[in-house]
């Protein structure tokens, strides 16, 4: 087979891949982006009204990964046999151009600066012994000040709506007072607040917390981004999460980056190209390119490149590293190796408040990123000393548009029946007169929670599936219970007629059957020590220096915030250093 050669290959056409492809073509490189899924154009299959179809969309997973070709296996503990994740439920990876960035919701955070150096901060405040046995608490190796210009850039590309607290040290708005200082305002003002969010705002303020408008990558007004592409104003249609936005109001790689990228003759996008592995030279020090399967012709293709960007989504990144032999696989018994280490997720539980029959919450009205939150119990914004756990959760009303199948299958909540007599009565009350409040929290990394290759199951191409060993741990369960306890006074201040608090139970095991979030992290984490991280602070592989691994796979532990703002900032940060340093003198940017 005759191999073709390009300057750079980007694996995956999601947020991380699109950002890297844009930056690298701007730097003058020829770039081929390989995407295993289909081309996706909102004008074609995201149009109105045919996309306003819950069954085809969020229920039958029109835009998500088709598990029939490849999935993961899951077990809770080291001594269990992992079984395949056969039906999509707990998390919903994307597939096709745009990746999960096409069907995400749009909550667009920066980072809590304390989270970037969580180990250092916890030790400084509470001492080394505060960290529970078996918890791999680590720092990112990069500071908020270093990342700030890239958060700012990402918000301008995404057309993010929000309200600042401080800009250049001066109070500039009624935004999140726990948020770090900004160099500039949000490109768009905050989104409007639905009724339930405004009730939450006043109730949270009444009990002494500090509510703020969620930063949303849903456009509150018409907007043109720095790449010259346009967004229309969001109409709160409620079809963000799980759908493509027919109004061109939700940021996606498809709307915000690819229209500009596609114009560039140095850029080529190949769809239906499933990358099997990154090819390495004889001594595993340099990548020579990739092997991919052309799903149209069913033929394997070799493509050579000087630079390979792995940006296929968190766990696919780790899977590709393991399949390619990049770095040493993590071994939890010996505590050696790094690939697959510090696999993390996110805790999330939902509480519900019912209002009077005169108050209609119109749950179907909403936007994926819009809402009102408090950060009083996130990150290190409160004293953990007497509590004895690490981590925290933002708490919010994020009414993203509740559709009837999801509502009906989920059931009316509380003690009401989920079918039969009394079900409809309760369902009507819940759908018309209730609202939900989430505690969306951190998840720490543990020695026996990790990713590796499954010994039994394989994908449609004959490669071993990725195996997840994951369970909830006492530290995170207690964190969740504590924060949910703080929701109760808010609900009471709202004047709820009744409520139910959703929290993790003592000893609760991870349940793959219930949607939680698609905020998986770690497994190819960044850091300053090659013994405990896979990639350096520029997301460059310690082992194969012409491979960069971009995504939430770089997070050493799971944070309370949604990940994509951080993923995008890290993508721009890595790209900046590739452009300004690496390309001038290819090789390791940090000496191991």
């Amino acid at each position, binding site marked *: 087979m005759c191999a073709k050669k390009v300057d750079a290959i980007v694996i995956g056409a999601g947020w991380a891949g699109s950002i890297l492809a844009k930056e690298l073509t701007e730097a003058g490189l020829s770039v081929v982006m390989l995407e295993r899924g289909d081309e996706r154009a909102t004008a074609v299959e995201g149009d*109105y*009204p045919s996309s306003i179809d819950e069954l085809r969309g969020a229920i039958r997973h029109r835009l998500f990964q088709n598990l*029939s070709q490849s999935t993961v296996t*899951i077990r809770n503990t080291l001594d269990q046999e992992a079984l*395949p994740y*056969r039906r999509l439920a707990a998390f919903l990876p994307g597939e096709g151009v745009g990746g999960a960035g096409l069907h995400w919701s749009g909550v667009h955070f920066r980072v809590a600066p304390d989270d970037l150096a969580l180990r250092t901060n916890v030790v400084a405040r509470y001492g080394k012994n505060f960290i529970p046995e078996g918890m791999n608490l680590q720092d990112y190796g990069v500071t908020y000040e270093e990342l700030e210009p890239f958060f700012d850039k990402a918000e301008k590309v995404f057309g993010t709506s929000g309200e600042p607290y401080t800009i250049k040290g001066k109070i500039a708005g009624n935004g999140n007072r726990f948020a770090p200082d900004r160099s500039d305002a949000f490109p768009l003002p905050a989104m409007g607040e639905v009724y339930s969010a405004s009730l939450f705002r006043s109730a949270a303020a009444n009990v002494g917390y500090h509510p703020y408008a969620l930063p949303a990558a849903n456009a509150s007004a018409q907007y043109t981004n720095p790449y010259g592409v346009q967004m229309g104003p969001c109409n709160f249609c409620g079809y963000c999460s799980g759908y493509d936005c027919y109004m061109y109001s939700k940021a996606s790689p498809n709307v915000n980056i690819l229209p500009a990228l596609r114009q560039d003759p140095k850029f080529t996008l190949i769809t239906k190209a499933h990358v099997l592995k990154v090819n390495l030279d004889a001594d595993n020090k340099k990548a020579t390119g990739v092997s991919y399967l052309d799903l149209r012709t069913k033929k394997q293709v070799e493509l050579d490149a000087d630079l390979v960007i792995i940006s296929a989504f968190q766990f696919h990144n780790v899977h590709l590293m393991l399949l390619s032999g990049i770095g040493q696989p993590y071994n939890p018994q010996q505590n050696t190796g790094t690939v697959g280490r510090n696999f993390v997720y996110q805790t999330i539980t939902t509480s519900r408040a019912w209002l009077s029959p005169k108050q209609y919450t119109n749950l179907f009205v909403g936007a994926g990123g819009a809402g009102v939150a408090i950060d009083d119990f996130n990150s290190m914004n409160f004293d953990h000393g007497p509590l004895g756990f690490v981590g925290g959760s933002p708490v919010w009303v994020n009414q993203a548009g509740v559709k009837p199948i999801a509502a009906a299958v989920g059931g009316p909540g509380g003690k009401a029946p989920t079918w039969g007599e009394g079900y409809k009565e309760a369902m009507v009350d819940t759908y018309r007169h209730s609202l939900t409040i989430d505690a969306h929290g951190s998840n720490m990394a543990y020695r026996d929670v990790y990713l590796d290759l499954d010994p039994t199951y394989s994908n449609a191409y004959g490669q071993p599936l990725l195996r997840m060993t994951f369970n909830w741990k006492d530290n995170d369960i207690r964190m969740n219970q504590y924060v949910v306890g703080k929701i109760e006074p808010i609900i009471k201040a709202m004047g709820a007629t009744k409520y139910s608090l959703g929290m993790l139970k003592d000893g609760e095991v991870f349940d*793959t059957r219930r949607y939680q979030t698609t905020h998986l992290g770690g497994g190819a984490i960044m850091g300053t020590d090659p013994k405990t991280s896979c990639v350096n602070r520029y997301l460059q592989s310690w082992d194969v220096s012409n491979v960069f691994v971009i995504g939430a796979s770089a997070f050493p532990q799971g944070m309370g915030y949604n990940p994509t703002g951080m993923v995008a900032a890290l993508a721009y940060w890595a790209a900046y250093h590739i452009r300004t340093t690496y390309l001038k003198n290819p090789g390791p940017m940090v000496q191991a």
Partner: protein
Amino acid sequence: MKIPSSTRRNFTAGLLGSASFWMYGGHKVWADALQSESLQSYEPKYFNREEWLFLNAACARIFPADAHGPDAALLGAPEFIDRQMDTPYGHGELWYMSGPFKEGAPNLGYQLSLPPRDLYRQAIAAANTYVRDHHQGQTFAQLTIPEQIALLKLFEQGTMTLGAVPAHTFFEQLRQNTLEGVFSDPLYGGNKALAGWTLLGFPGARADFMDWVNQKGAPYPFGPVSISGETA
């Protein structure tokens, strides 16, 4: 095949003279639904007669006729499920279906080798066998409504298996598909006369709430619209 007459009688008895349904529905939904029932001549493409009778009865028990409106059978949930059986979903083409198939802890999720269409076929046959053994040769559809409810509760909570299918797995499949039929766009055969959406107050494919972001708790005033433009 028509909806079994017993279901029809139950529905009519449950609704006529029920004032609160008028209040919830707010308009002539039930009359439309009744009319669509009389027009209904759906012939199942996948399910055989015995399965079809089972499905109609079970859907109506899961989502019964009451003061809030008609049951799921009348809303077309059985038709919806029958039509789903010949989609990629029904054939299991959206699921990872490679072996080995092993039982595991429930929290690790579905581990059977059966796609939905085979799951229904096996489980309904086994359920009717069970009913015949315990109810003098009758089938599920021939039982009284309280007996049907009791049996569904047994499936939901019990530890029995129906063929290779744990009864609670089958029950959850049935419950989920029934509710999908009631609440999906009528394009797929259920949600007749948009009565599912009307019940909840969901406006369907309107998908534009620019003026309704926050009306301080007032009810949304417009009824539902389907993708094809049908209104209620």
